[in-house]
């Protein structure tokens, strides 16, 4: 069938020709889809408002050879806070860039859509945006299957010793290192996190996504978690996200 219905979230869009756009959508059942939205840059377009970035919409799409085409679109939830508050908009742009960068086209991932939707709700409504940013990065890594190994040494498989004050993490190897492996690799792409940050990260990935806001790390631990999550994102993405500079700028200025 050339026509199909789905739900989607617009991650970003590019201008096309005089009045069209290519929209990059994260859909519930088709994965990432690129589709042409005809005439959306004209003032009277019926599609424009429902295809704004971060908008959750119900869509009717026409399957094309290279690009699909948006036939109908109806907004389910607009996430206005993500467009009207600068810090939240920057955070949502960062999350959208990560999702866009990690996903191949039309590669369905059943868990990603609800997790991404929950993340947008967190970014739009959480009273502490920095806290929300840590949670949504954790959610994204988990739903992509990139959750770091935190229980055993990723190099030798040994259990992490109890009672250690600090834990060595290696973004490139995808997890923590035991004392011996950590000492051998010190300074070669490793980072050290406190026991508190390590324990909170383990709780982050063991907690039901609906109860994530119960996790309330202190400022110092949250800072360590943020550094670790970012390093993991950059390693997985194989580049620094373009949105990070702007996100850091507005977060710094809002303090």
């Amino acid at each position, binding site marked *: 069938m050339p026509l199909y219905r789905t739900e989607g979230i617009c991650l*970003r869009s590019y201008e096309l*020709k005089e009045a069209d756009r290519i929209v990059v959508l994260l859909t519930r059942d088709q994965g990432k889809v690129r589709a042409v939205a005809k005439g959306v840059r004209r*003032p*009277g377009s*019926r*599609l*424009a*408002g*429902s295809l*704004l*970035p*971060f*908008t959750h919409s119900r869509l009717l799409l026409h399957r094309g050879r290279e690009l699909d085409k948006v036939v109908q*679109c*109806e*907004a389910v939830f*607009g996430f*206005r806070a993500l*467009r*009207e*508050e*600068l810090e939240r*908009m*920057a955070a949502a*742009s*960062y999350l*959208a*860039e990560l999702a*866009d960068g990690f996903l191949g086209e039309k590669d369905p991932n059943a868990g990603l859509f609800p997790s991404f939707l929950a993340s947008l709700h967190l970014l739009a409504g959480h009273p502490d945006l920095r806290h929300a940013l840590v949670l949504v990065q954790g959610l994204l890594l988990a739903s992509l299957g990139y959750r770091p190994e935190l229980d055993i040494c990723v190099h030798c498989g040994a259990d992490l010793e109890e009672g250690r004050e600090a834990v060595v993490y290696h973004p490139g190897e995808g997890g923590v290192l035991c004392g011996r492996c950590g000492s051998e690799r010190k300074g070669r792409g490793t980072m050290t996190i406190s026991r508190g940050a390590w324990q909170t990260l383990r709780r982050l990935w063991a907690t039901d996504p609906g109860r994530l806001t119960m996790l309330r790390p202190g400022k110092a631990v949250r800072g360590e978690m943020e550094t670790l999550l970012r390093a993991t994102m950059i390693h997985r993405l194989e580049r620094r996200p*373009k*949105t990070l*500079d*702007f*996100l850091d*700028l*507005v977060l710094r*200025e809002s303090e």
Partner: protein
Amino acid sequence: MLYPKTIARLIEELCSLPGVGPKTAQRLAFHLLREKPERVEALAAAMLEAKQRIFSCGVCQNLTDVEPCLLCADPARDRSSILVVEEPKDVLALERTGEYRGSYHVLHGVISPMDGIGPGALRIGELLERLKDGGVKEVILATNPDVEGEATALYMARLIRPLGVRTTRIARGIPVGGDLDYADEVTLARALEGRREVG
């Protein structure tokens, strides 16, 4: 490529223009080759002249061939109000309305985090300079009502408000001649918010 080197180079150069793909570039190249030499020379001369003579106005940053530009030099324009737009073509669109008699400021872009374009790439510093002498009473932010335009407007409002200058945003909602039945939910919500008393 099968074409002679000169044609191949022309196609390659045309291909670098926005919105021009290899097929369009090929069609344009053959059109130019079929044209009379004086037509092609006139086109080349116009392109060169525009490139050599056009620069940004030192005041409003709009494209001009005189300093200051005609709008900034016009004594009838109200200098206490500055309307901020993304691109030079937006100035033309607003001038066509005949409704605005103040001055302009062209940013030459918008903040687009996903493209790595931050505030430093825009002409925001030049606008803040213009606000320093205290003569400006209002800055109207007329960037597009999309995510990038909103981000730019929000960021600028944050910089301008502490200077004590009234900062406003153009209205958003149902377009003139539009049909409520066909308007999307986001546009309708904005239109309701921006409702005004009648009569």
